[in-house]
């Protein structure tokens, strides 16, 4: 797996040299583009691994819904990350596909149970946001109090929009769609990753993946 990380870094270096060759670009701009390239590549790998695995498991739509839910909520609330690009992608692939399998293997609960589940997911999310959000990482610490308040407020807003939409759906269509049930699972999981137990859980997986792949994480982010 170190081989893959090295290949990705080589690819980034090659792309950067292309910019240096053809554009009059300064050092600070180079480091911003480099950072952005790492983000884009890791996001593509993360989504691809999880979705390809989901395709073969027959849970593509469930996994895609969970990923979109987690992505929107996570960008404001933060959460635990693994120490390397590959670990993060593999960890995400395993966990999100397990959630997808859980949803696909359970018979869709009746309307009342989904409503209760959504309410519990809403309460759990509100509690975790209030207590832990925004959950930052050593690689990108959030030190500004203003930014912390802003991100916490936006996390609350996202959860309120989600819960408001589920209630509106229930009153308009008189039934709960499966997508609501799947998104509730995504909300519960993402809220869990904000908690200290969620961080410990991610760290244990990260250490296990490091041992499996014989790599040493460059940072615990």
């Amino acid at each position, binding site marked *: 797996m170190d081989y893959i990380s090295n290949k990705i870094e080589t690819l980034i270096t090659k792309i950067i040299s292309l910019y240096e060759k053809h554009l009059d670009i300064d050092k600070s701009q180079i480091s911003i583009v480099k950072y952005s390239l790492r983000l884009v590549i890791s*996001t593509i790998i993360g989504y691809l691994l999880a979705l390809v695995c989901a395709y073969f498991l027959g849970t593509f739509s469930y996994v895609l819904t969970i990923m979109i839910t987690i992505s929107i909520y996570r960008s404001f609330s933060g959460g635990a990350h693994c120490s390397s690009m590959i670990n993060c992608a593999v960890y995400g692939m395993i966990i999100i596909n397990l959630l997808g399998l859980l949803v696909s293997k359970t018979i869709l609960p009746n309307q009342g149970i989904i409503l209760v589940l959504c309410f519990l997911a809403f309460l759990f999310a509100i509690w975790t946001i209030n207590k832990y959000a925004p959950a930052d*990482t050593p690689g990108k610490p959030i030190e500004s109090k203003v930014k912390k308040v802003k991100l916490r407020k936006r996390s609350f807003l996202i959860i309120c929009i989600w819960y408001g939409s589920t209630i509106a759906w229930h009153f308009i269509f008189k039934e709960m769609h499966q997508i609501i049930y799947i998104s509730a699972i995504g909300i519960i999981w993402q809220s869990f990753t904000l908690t200290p137990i969620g961080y410990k859980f991610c760290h244990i997986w990260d250490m296990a993946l490091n041992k499996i792949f014989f790599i040493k994480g460059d940072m615990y982010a």
Partner: protein
Amino acid sequence: MLKKMLQLSVVFFTLIAFANVAAATSVIAYQPELPEELKDIE
């Protein structure tokens, strides 16, 4: 043409980087270490 495409991609990548700075963390995958150039931005 290549130069224009590269210039456009620099704008795109800069936007991605700034969006990530504004967010709490990367959406689904690995969160790389923030470069010094972006640390002062709130």
